[in-house]
């Protein structure tokens, strides 16, 4: 027997770019994250050929998760074709040989920056969210060690106080993206800067969500069928962004999350932010369209979960 028979052929990179040592560490952390919904698990966060802050957290999770039989979709603010998404997708495909797709229903792993697709994800799909700031307490407690103690004690009083102050000053909750949520009735979690529109999608979802911050070296998870509740008061409720009256300029659809495109005359036009979904609307006979989180009248699929329907 020769050495050549024993060793595998020389490769320029390990499968998935990361070496096995790095992948094992990430995988151990991901398992603990799933066992502790919403708890931020520290991890090593390796160097990658893109700069931290450009999706390295999500990328590391995707690379250690992906196998040759996976199909991957990468989006950036809903778009499959933005520079960041296209780069990440090409890198993942080169390093793992996976198939790539724009179709939410076909993908097994969806890496996303700041959006959840409009079509409902199903069991067995993994949503990987890139997280710039994993700490939902940062604006009330900049000291990371003290914030950890607050999580340990489930001491979230200052967050409620912050909400109350917003009500007193502005008459409504001012959090836009990354609206804080309570996961499994225990941990306060930042859902990453997804719009409020997407936040309820995580509640009792069929899919597994993994959130990872490469720069901050923390990852956390929302397992399938887990309670994820936006913070709100008994008498003042969480509300999603108002999409009423907005009509997609490409597909004429309503009641989906829209990008606003300011026009020279001061008016605005709107376009559905989920480009994969728009493509399906425009060519209805080419791909199967799944059920969406919000129906055509803007009603969320879990009845009664969003209590405030007079959105702000």
């Amino acid at each position: 027997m020769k050495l050549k028979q024993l060793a595998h052929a020389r490769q320029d990179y390990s499968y998935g770019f990361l070496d096995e040592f790095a992948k094992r560490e990430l995988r151990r952390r991901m398992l603990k994250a799933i066992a502790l919904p919403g708890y931020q698990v520290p991890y090593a966060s390796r160097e990658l050929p893109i700069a931290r802050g450009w999706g390295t957290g999500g990328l590391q999770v995707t690379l250690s998760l992906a196998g040759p039989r996976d199909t991957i979709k990468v989006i950036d603010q809903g778009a499959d074709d933005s520079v960041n998404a296209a780069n990440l997708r090409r890198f993942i495909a080169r390093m793992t040989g996976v198939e790539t797709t724009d179709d939410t229903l076909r993908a097994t792993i969806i890496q996303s920056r700041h959006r959840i697709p409009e079509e409902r994800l199903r069991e067995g799909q993994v949503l990987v969210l890139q997280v710039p700031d994993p700490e939902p307490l940062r604006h009330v407690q900049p000291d990371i060690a003290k914030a950890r103690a607050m999580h340990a004690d489930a001491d979230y009083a200052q967050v409620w106080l912050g909400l109350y102050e917003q009500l007193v000053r502005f008459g409504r909750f001012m959090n836009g993206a990354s609206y804080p949520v309570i996961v499994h009735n225990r941990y306060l979690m930042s859902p990453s800067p997804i719009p409020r529109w997407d936040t309820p999608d995580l509640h009792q979802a069929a899919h597994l969500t993994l959130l990872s911050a490469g720069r901050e070296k923390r990852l956390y998870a929302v397992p399938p069928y887990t309670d994820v509740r936006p913070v709100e008061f008994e008498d003042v409720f969480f509300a999603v962004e108002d999409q009423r009256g907005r009509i997609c300029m490409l597909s004429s659809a309503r009641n989906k999350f829209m990008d606003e495109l300011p026009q020279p005359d001061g008016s605005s036009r709107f376009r559905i932010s989920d480009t994969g979904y728009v493509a399906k609307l425009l060519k209805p006979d080419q791909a199967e369209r799944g059920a969406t989180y919000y129906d055509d009248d803007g009603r969320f699929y879990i009845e009664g979960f969003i209590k405030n329907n007079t959105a702000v």
Partner: protein
Amino acid sequence: MIAPTLTKDEADAHSVFTALMWALGHPGCEQRLPTGGLRAFEAIGAALIDLETSFYTPDGALAHALARTGARLAPIDAAHYQFYPELTVHDLDPLHAAPVGSYAYPDESASLLIGCRLGSGLNLTLRGPGIQGSSTLRIAGLPEGFWPLRKNAIRYPLGWDMWLIDGDRIVGLPRTTVIEGY
């Protein structure tokens, strides 16, 4: 440049990990490992532990195999990955001391991998994250007193997480799963 391909070891580690992940994501729902029996425990060791981690196992042959990963053999009260191909009544007393993490770092807790027989014996009802409503799990081959011990060990978020292995079948039970029916 051509896309790097999986080596045999990497492919095994990947399929073991995805089985562990989906087992934990859907507690009580069976997943398949690439190998069965004692080899399954070795494969899980190869996929999960290395010189950054500690392990414990009462099984001499398995301890020898797991030591090759570079992980440190540690006592039950310190080991983060504990492998019990067969859990006996004598293991229960020391298991009280298995690490459950701290409130600041609940992830610094033990993960238990326990051999059992799935599909017969106790009929348990499971509830919690990963389970839509409730589900059932039939399980035998664990010593009397194990389930009360687990209940006492878990003070969420403190507690340990476990996988139950029968041949090449695996079921996960994270600390969030509430179990009734024993």
